[in-house]
């Protein structure tokens, strides 16, 4: 029966030829897709001045690049990135669960319009609105606040994300109503019911929107590019470009900074892999 587990039946194939084929194919896959990342890991810990000096084989391991990175403000950029992703994710998750609660548990007029609004925002890539967004951030309509060069300018625009809201809404629809009604009969208010009954039940979905939100905010490029006009507000991804051509230190600092920018998202993915895969398929199926 195992032959019919997959389209090619490759896994069940036995014999020296099949084994060799599998080792070759899967080995190549691992080398091609992780090689550049492993190369980054190794090279970041090597001393090199050579701009082509990207290696998979370490000859002399050292922390020089990470020490020199401090002189180039890399740790300031890293801190900026963590501030933005920390507060941004907190805001995004809160906004998403609140909105999802209304969409999944309440019936009200205008709900279809709201759903349509959410979907529209997902169809509208942020790149398209980059130019006008930069003007809006510089002078918020009605409030007349200037968010250029502030953390808020990088945090608030990622606060509401259609994907997160929709994933959460789908999940909340599955939570049984009985518990909520019981709490209400006991006299619990709207917010208390929400925080003590609904939210704890949604923990699996919180993992999904949490890990996706983290990757999404960590990967922001155009937004910090628009908002962080002064170097001391740069996030790590947009700072990489400026670390490139340094005659004194070569590409060492760039490699160290790249590794620091890479690790958080890889760690988040590996730690929440199951949630990530669930979100990937559920998000993709909904287009």
């Amino acid at each position, binding site marked *: *029966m195992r*032959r*019919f587990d*997959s*389209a090619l039946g*490759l*896994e069940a194939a036995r014999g020296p030829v099949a084994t060799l084929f599998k080792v070759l*194919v*899967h080995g190549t896959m691992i080398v091609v*897709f*992780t090689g*550049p*990342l492993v190369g980054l890991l190794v090279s970041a810990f090597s001393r090199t001045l*050579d701009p*082509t000096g*990207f290696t998979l084989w370490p000859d002399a391991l050292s922390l020089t690049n990470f020490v020199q990175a401090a002189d180039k403000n890399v740790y300031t950029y890293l801190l900026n990135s963590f501030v933005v992703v920390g507060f941004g994710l907190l*805001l995004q998750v*809160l*906004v998403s669960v*609140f*909105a999802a609660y*209304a969409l999944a548990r*309440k*019936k*009200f*007029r*205008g709900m279809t319009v*709201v759903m349509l*609004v*959410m979907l529209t*925002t997902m169809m*509208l*890539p942020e*790149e*398209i*609105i*980059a*130019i*006008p*967004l930069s003007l*809006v951030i510089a002078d*918020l*309509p009605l409030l007349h606040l200037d968010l250029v060069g502030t953390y808020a300018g990088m945090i*608030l625009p990622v*606060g*509401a994300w259609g994907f997160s809201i929709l994933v959460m809404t789908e999940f909340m629809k599955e939570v049984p109503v009985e518990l909520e009604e019981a709490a209400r009969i006991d006299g619990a208010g709207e917010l208390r019911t929400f925080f003590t009954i609904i939210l704890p039940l949604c923990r699996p979905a919180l993992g999904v929107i949490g890990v996706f939100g983290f990757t999404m905010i*960590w990967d922001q*490029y*155009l937004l910090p590019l*628009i908002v962080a006009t002064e170097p001391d507000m740069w996030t790590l991804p*947009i700072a*990489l470009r400026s670390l490139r051509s340094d005659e004194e230190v070569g*590409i060492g600092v760039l490699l160290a900074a*790249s590794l620091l*920018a*890479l690790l958080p*998202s*890889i760690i988040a*993915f590996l730690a929440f*892999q199951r949630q990530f895969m669930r979100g990937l398929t559920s998000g993709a199926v909904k287009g």
Partner: protein
Amino acid sequence: MTAAPTPTPAPAPARTPEPAAPAPSGRRPGRGPRRGTLVAWAFLAPALVLFLYFKFIPMFEGLRMSLFEVRYVGDRFVGLDNYRRILTDDAFTQAIWHSVVLAVGTTAGSIVLGLVLALLVEGPARYLWFVRTAAFLPVVTTMAVVAEVWRIMYHPADTGLINSILGWAGIAPQPFLAGEDSSLLSIMGMSVWRGAPYDMMIFLAGLVGVDRSLYEAAAVDGASTWRRLRHITLPALRPVFWILFTLAAIRGLRVFVEVYVLTNGGPNGSSEVLMTLIYKLGFQKGELGIAAAGGIVLFVATLLLTVLVQVMRGRQAA
């Protein structure tokens, strides 16, 4: 936009009822239908306010700006002049063309390679799970980092990593990003490297749904592996293809970070895409009106492409 409540300064969840909330519906029987509606709008308020400020206002502002020459001393209405300039400007038509080539090449490459990879790693074995996870890592890697790493690997000298590997096979060093004929292709190569594992995962999710008894029946009938793929697997994956086409239509033309980091449009404009050109016009040359019009053109193209894919999908299904 009628659903958006009046803006409140609080980005934190607003607890007060929204004045713009529509009249309560009488659909909820029992106590307090009005209260239910108000509570719903209160919970939705933070999301709607943020969307209004950072999606919809910029969208309409962009539409307005595209009709003006934007100046510090006051905007001057120019009608469709910005659009005319874009559509007749060589740099713009070149950039649109490059965006399309890059989008089509990346999409096709990622889907084909993603499908092949998915077929190769399908199965319940533990070590295949490891291969899948390893291959997926590029997808979760920050794009700016991926691009910097590839920029180094693409180094045109014969000591550059990829050129060294080509050297072992006796192939002469290639200019990659530094060549006018090869810059766009090199960007495409990197995008496929990052895009194919994503498509692979979506295909794998689709492959789970294929009816196993059909494989068995095909084997009993003596069908070859190729015929089994062609007549059972591929038709079952049709919905997956449409999902990937839809995503490609939405994402394809907006490519920015890859190009900005790898070549910034160079050498000599040979890899300039729509977004890098818009960015340069808007933020470096101060041509905000023309840049905004470029954004609208990109939006309309994306919208048309998405609608086209949906229409084709509907026709296929019918």
